[in-house]
């Protein structure tokens, strides 16, 4: 029952996020809220006997707790105007989930004998690693620590059907988005580097590269927004 309620809430947050993403940026808050309410209502109308959240559950496509946290932060920022996660936290999220996707999915699909997914049960060392990362993030005042904390708290509360920590941390759509953002950012950076080297045969100024990766601008530009 808990898992069912969570999957319903998770799906509605995802619908809200998808809706507000398409609402023009200059729309009023009332317009955004009204559009979101309409989308949520539509998502709850049964089609073929099932609502959208139940169709997604049938396909095993219930978002992870991390996805829900990221989507909720996105909706909050767009509707309320308060950035729970700043640009640095978003950049950390894409890097973290991109790396997690590369570690998890190829091997979970049968590449080799090692199965990182199995480590999500009885996940003592995995929790230790996540705790160490979280402490580092708190130390650096990086708000991505909040996302990890939400995922582990959801695991504590067994909010999903799964008993595996990985399913609370990451899901295939989050992995795909993270890798896409990183790939796009990488392509943009490569193009910029080529432009610079074409105009400056001396090569890239290492100082520029360092600044680009430190202030989150390269990710932000890849996403088409201001850092």
């Amino acid at each position: 029952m808990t898992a069912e309620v969570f999957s319903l809430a998770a799906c509605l947050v995802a619908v809200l996020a998808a809706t507000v993403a398409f609402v023009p940026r200059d729309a009023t808050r009332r317009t955004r809220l009204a559009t979101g309410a309409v989308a949520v209502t539509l998502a709850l109308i049964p089609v073929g006997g099932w609502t959208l959240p139940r169709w997604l559950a049938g396909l095993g496509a219930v978002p992870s707790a991390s996805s829900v946290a990221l989507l909720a932060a996105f909706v909050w920022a767009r509707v309320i105007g308060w950035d729970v996660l700043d640009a640095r936290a978003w950049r950390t999220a894409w890097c973290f989930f991109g790396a997690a996707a590369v570690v998890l999915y190829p091997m979970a699909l049968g590449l080799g004998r090692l199965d990182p997914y199995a480590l999500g049960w009885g996940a003592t060392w995995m929790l230790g690693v996540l705790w160490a990362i979280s402490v580092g993030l708190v130390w650096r005042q990086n708000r991505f620590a909040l996302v990890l904390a939400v995922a582990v708290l959801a695991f504590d509360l067994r909010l999903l059907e799964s008993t595996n920590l990985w399913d609370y941390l990451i899901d295939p759509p989050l992995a795909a988005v993270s890798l896409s953002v990183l790939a796009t950012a990488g392509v943009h950076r490569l193009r910029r580097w080529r432009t610079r080297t074409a105009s400056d045969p001396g090569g890239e100024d290492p100082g520029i590269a360092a600044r680009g990766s430190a202030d989150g601008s390269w990710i932000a530009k890849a996403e088409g927004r201001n850092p």
Partner: protein
Amino acid sequence: MTAGAWSRATWISFGVITGIYLWAGVRAVGVVSRATVGFSVETIGHGDAEPSFSEGFVDHDTGRMVHVASLSELSDGRLVAVWYSGSHEGSGDVALYLATRGREKGAAWSQPHEVASPASVARELHRPVGKVGNAVVFIDGEGRLAMVFVTMPFGGWALSSLNVKLSADGGTSWLPAQRLTSSPLFNLGTLVKNKPLRLADGSLLLPISHEFLGRFPGFLQLSSRDQTMEVVAMRRLCGGRRFLQPAAVALDAQTALALLRSARAGETIGVARSTDGGASWSEPAPSHLPNPDAGLDAVALSQGRVLLAFNDQRSGRSRLDLALSTDAGANWSTVTTLEDEPGAEFSYPFLLRGHDGSTHLVYTWKRSRLKDLTFNEAWIEGKLGRVP
């Protein structure tokens, strides 16, 4: 910023986050402590000295396809058989059926009744379910009859997910189905075929296969709690696309043998071993036993012997044999050829050792019936020409 400059908010964040992780850690330690508990091996004697053999069919000829039968023995000695049947494999009208048979000699199987269909499972899981498939029945750690079975939203076996139903009255009534999560990719691609190994703490190692992109075997460790059964661990035997559907036999509290179906026709059965109570398994190695990409099963007999039912051919499923190993799977002797009819299909054997020492075998007979055999060790020894 240095540690000395931590603000009160930072310390509070650190404390809250550490608390959340400690909570999860305490649960995880509980799971890890159960990883190496060893097998629970039940000692069943040789049984009657006189050879005994009987055969029949579990189901009636309904003209519909039947496949993938499994057996379990209830506490009162009755046998339970579960299988799927429908117009054809993978169709939306396939449902799971159950029949029971009394312990008395010559007892007949009961009229089969439906235990799960796409519609009934969809109602119980509160989500659309397009198809049902492979099921395996066994007694869980709480003494209840458990049935782990496959459902698919649409498409083929690659989109399978596992579910479990529990019955406290031997299959007459069932608790609603629950979903088991066994894959990070939309929980797709996991199938069952053979019975689980029992661990000393009451949990079970259920043989599984993944068939989404890769085709590889493993075990799910399942633990029963109150009205539920949950996954507490998973162990992979190998990756790639070489073997699947392990048939596992515990030889003693620490040692087990797994025999694996080849993922391609024309190959051989794979063999893997565990010497630490199922916590880890050796990389499967090819044996000299042929396998036409077909299901097989094995069961432990007395004196550490292992009985194997398999299609003794490299292609087709027209021949079904029994083989015996007296050296933990290193060498095998053919006991008898049960079926041999070119063009026909005899497949997916399932073996079960009863508490009275008799061995039960059920298998798909020409895709239209489920044949069952009951025999004892004296019959096996007679076929081998040995005196018990």
